[in-house]
């Protein structure tokens, strides 16, 4: 599946693979140990943010906090 930013397709794929593994093997089993995908997500997000600005996609009310825990509900 493509990314909105063509240049970050590879980083997206790496991040997606990391997330899918963590989601299935840790998160769904209520394993709260560390999230291994934070760095990958940061790199991927740089490309996405750039593409969103370039394409002027109207994303409102969303700060790019990246990956985080204990975010307020």
């Amino acid at each position, binding site marked *: *599946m*493509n*990314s*909105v*930013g063509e240049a970050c397709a590879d980083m*997206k794929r790496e*991040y997606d693979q990391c*997330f*899918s593994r963590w*989601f*299935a093997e840790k*998160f*769904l*089993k*209520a394993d*709260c140990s560390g999230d291994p995908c934070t760095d990958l*997500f940061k790199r*991927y*997000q740089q490309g*996405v943010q750039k593409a*969103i600005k370039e394409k002027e*996609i*109207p*994303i*409102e009310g*969303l*700060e*790019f*906090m*990246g*990956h*985080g*825990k*204990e*975010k*307020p*509900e």
Partner: protein
Amino acid sequence: MRVWSSEHVFGHPWDTVIKAAMRKYPNPMNPSVVGVDVLERSVDSRGRLHSHRLLSTEWGLPGLVRAILGTSRTLTYIREHSIVDPVGKKMELCSTNITLTNWVSVSERLVYTPHPEDPGRTVLTQEAVITVKGISLGSYLESLMANTISSNAKKVLIAWGGWLPPADHTHMWPPP
């Protein structure tokens, strides 16, 4: 105002369905989604995973509809927020278009929960609301049908340029 809803039962346990749902795109049932990006992801204080995603879709609007709308744009962006509760076994997704909002708003909500009588199965409930220029589509259709001689809903839907799927279609978004 709820315009369309459906319920579907998968013959798999909730965990299996959710893993597949998170990888839903590409989805052969919904080939219009051409891009998916995660904008934000976090776990809240209740242990629920929140994901905000940007979906790029090709609407494939019929030529007549595009001509009426005066637009040649076919790429539309949708914002999706999902919440996965691994303990309560509930996944909820809400999505809405963030472009073409001048003339249409399509909001969809999906909820995946274990079947109440069989943990080996999963229930998906979907509902969607369409609003065209501030008028609920339901009201529009209601008034249209009231004014027409024919009470055949399919003819009305075809006159809309094939926007709405047949009654037994289980995937609403994007419009075919």
